[in-house]
């Protein structure tokens, strides 16, 4: 075991140092991936973090979990706000087949994955939860990969629209099915809980959006002073959401969408809200790797691989079918299908949404889902990189 020379007394003092060493290892592997292998850095961060995590169970001490959770939540809020601010709702009005394809992509990936789970022997509630988790694409992976490859073009725009859409659907469905578990008082209260969450998210997202819109009149949010202020607001929002027990996923995403669509002026922000945001996002992937619990991965096995394949096929086939009507080429449809493969589940896990649900269902589906998530964390950034190059959306 690494660092076994440390005595328990030393450990208490050295815990932050150990964490920093783990993160540094993950960052180093990420750089090797990016500079030497010309592969996505985030795959390197995750692999580096996962390997470091496997070498020792002392990387992350229980006392650090709230801090790590805070960093991760803040990084995800930055990414979700950024994602939301790229979604033009008018587009769905002008391109109805795009709207239909977004709905169909969510529906088919939900049904296909739930059916697969049923086939694999999961009970109905568990199968529905697996289906719900399969709907969402990881906003973190998508935003980071688009940033790293400086991608732009039709595939990029569609990818953002699909990711935002399926993330909203996924977050709502997961909350719904987690509440429907036997632990819930009744179906009525479960629906009520979901509705309260949704209203709370809408309300807090609207307040956040109004703050941004108001501030933009006086401050240039693109410069470092404005960006620092944006960060401060996001942190305030984070603490407020925590106080009201609202998961910090939907509000920043909805706030981003609202800012984009209520204020016609272009929202020009530095990527990931500048270097601080960028650092947080990189840390997110390192910490994600470090906190992987391998026993879940082993338990998932081949079933997880089947889940990944069925989900990818479901999303890809919908895009393929709707491609010509929505103005895409088949080539682009394939590329978007490839880019939509990362699971949003990691966001839900990391932000504690699933743990908060406290559901027995969640405990049962964890192994297969986490296994699938890891497969996607490793493979999907590569698939995204290839897909974006395949459609000449990266400036390489």
């Amino acid at each position, binding site marked *: 075991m690494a660092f076994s020379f440390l005595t328990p007394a030393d450990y208490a003092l050295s815990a932050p140092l150990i964490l920093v060493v783990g993160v540094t290892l993950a960052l180093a592997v990420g750089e090797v991936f990016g500079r030497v292998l010309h592969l996505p850095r985030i795959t390197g961060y995750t692999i580096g973090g996962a390997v470091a995590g496997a070498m020792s169970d002392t990387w992350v001490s229980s006392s650090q979990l709230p801090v790590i959770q805070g960093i991760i939540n803040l990084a995800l809020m930055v990414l979700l706000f950024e994602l939301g*601010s*790229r979604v*033009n709702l008018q*587009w769905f009005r*002008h*391109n109805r087949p795009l709207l239909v394809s977004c709905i169909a992509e969510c529906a088919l990936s939900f049904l296909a994955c739930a059916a697969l789970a049923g086939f694999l022997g999961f009970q109905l509630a568990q199968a529905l939860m697996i289906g719900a988790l399969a709907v969402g694409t990881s906003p973190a992976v998508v935003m980071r990969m688009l940033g790293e490859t400086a991608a*732009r*073009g*039709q595939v990029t*725009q569609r990818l953002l629209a699909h990711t935002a859409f399926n993330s909203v659907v996924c977050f709502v469905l997961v909350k719904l099915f987690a509440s429907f578990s036997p632990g819930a008082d009744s179906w009525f209260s479960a629906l009520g809980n979901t509705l309260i969450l949704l209203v709370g998210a809408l309300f807090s997202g609207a307040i956040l959006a109004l703050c941004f819109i108001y501030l933009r009149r006086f401050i240039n949010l693109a410069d470092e002073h404005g960006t620092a202020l944006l960060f401060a607001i996001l942190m305030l929002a984070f603490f407020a959401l925590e106080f009201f027990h609202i998961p910090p996923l939907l509000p920043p995403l909805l706030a981003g969408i609202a800012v*984009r669509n209520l204020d*016609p*002026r*272009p*929202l*020009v922000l530095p990527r990931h809200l500048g270097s601080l945001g960028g650092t947080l996002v990189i840390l997110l992937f390192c910490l994600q790797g470090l906190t992987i619990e391998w026993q879940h991965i082993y338990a998932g096995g081949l079933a997880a691989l089947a889940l990944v394949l069925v989900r990818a096929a479901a999303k890809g086939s919908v895009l393929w079918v709707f491609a*010509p009507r*929505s*103005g895409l*080429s088949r080539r682009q449809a394939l590329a978007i299908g490839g880019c939509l493969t990362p699971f949003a589940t990691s966001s839900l896990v990391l932000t504690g949404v699933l743990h908060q649900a406290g559901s027995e269902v969640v405990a049962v589906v964890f192994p297969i889902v986490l296994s699938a998530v890891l497969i996607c964390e490793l493979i999907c950034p590569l698939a995204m990189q290839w897909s974006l190059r395949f459609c*000449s959306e990266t*400036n390489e």
Partner: protein
Amino acid sequence: MSLPNFSPSRALTFGVELELQIVNTFDYDLTPGAPDLLRVLEQRGVVGDIKPEMTSSMIEIATGVCERVDQAIDELTDLRDSLVDAARTLDLGIAGGGTHAYQQWREQQITDAQRYQQLSSIYGYLAKQFTIFGQHVHIGAPSADVALYLMHGLSRYVPHFIALSASSPFVQGADTGFASARLNSVFAFPLSGRAPFVERWPDFSTYFDKMTATGVVASMKDFYWDIRPKPEYGTVEVRVMDTPLGILHSAHIAAYIQAVARWLLIERPFELEEDDYLVYTFNRFQACRFGFEGEIVHPRTHERYSIAEDIVATLDIIEQHAMELGSDKALGELRKRVLNRQSDASWLRDCFAETRLMPDMVRHQVNHWMQ
């Protein structure tokens, strides 16, 4: 390759080509949307001359052969509507203007076509810097010699065409102080500027053969002259204009060129002389730099006067010709703009002063062209 035969066309017919900006609707930067737009237009069976340009953030629309300005306006309106519809399907914006205010040339992608890839290999980064947007107007000529006469005769009015269309004050995120900074990118090309002073087609053919023998040029497309003959179409092509911010103004400028050409052909108001070109680059610079406020020198009398005054004086002279062509109303609109010193360049500067955000200025630009 030898010079193609000049295919005569009906005198004073005209056609308009507009190179347009394709932007995203997020930060309104240029985006490589031309292949997507062309695919959607093809799927919808849109009929019209819409084609790719040097980089994939550019797209060109062109009218057919027009006789009157109304016809050009109708055709441009149809093309715009089709393009706007396709752009909305793809969440893209289309804008006029001679330059995109803050695009980074190194981020542009050369269009995947043999000719553009070849130009990119010859001209290097200049090809990407050629992400600029111009209006070209073809004027029909019944013979090759008439085409050459028009080419040299219209050269005197190049400052007018530049000032009337000027819409490129911003380049790479900065106000250049120019009304039309687009042409500075064209001047970087080795075969830009004016055509040699030859008045007879056999002489022009001899010049062309000499140039092809040097290996410097392979076709007429390799000459980036301000005005050049287009033997295949039987026209002279005026290429100095920025793409205006709206299609109506584009059509009005084309009508002005048509009316000047009619006046030149019918009245032959002056004899052509090579010395007319002595002041050519100075006058052109004044138009690019100061627009309507530029001061030009008359090639014969050496008098100086403002470009705005000269345009108004020319409008007076060609009024009868404009009436014959049915373009007096269009030229009346131009006169108003000149008298009020309203140019697209000043519109952009005012817009930027108001919004204080270049992406927001481009958003207004997009709304203006797509409305």
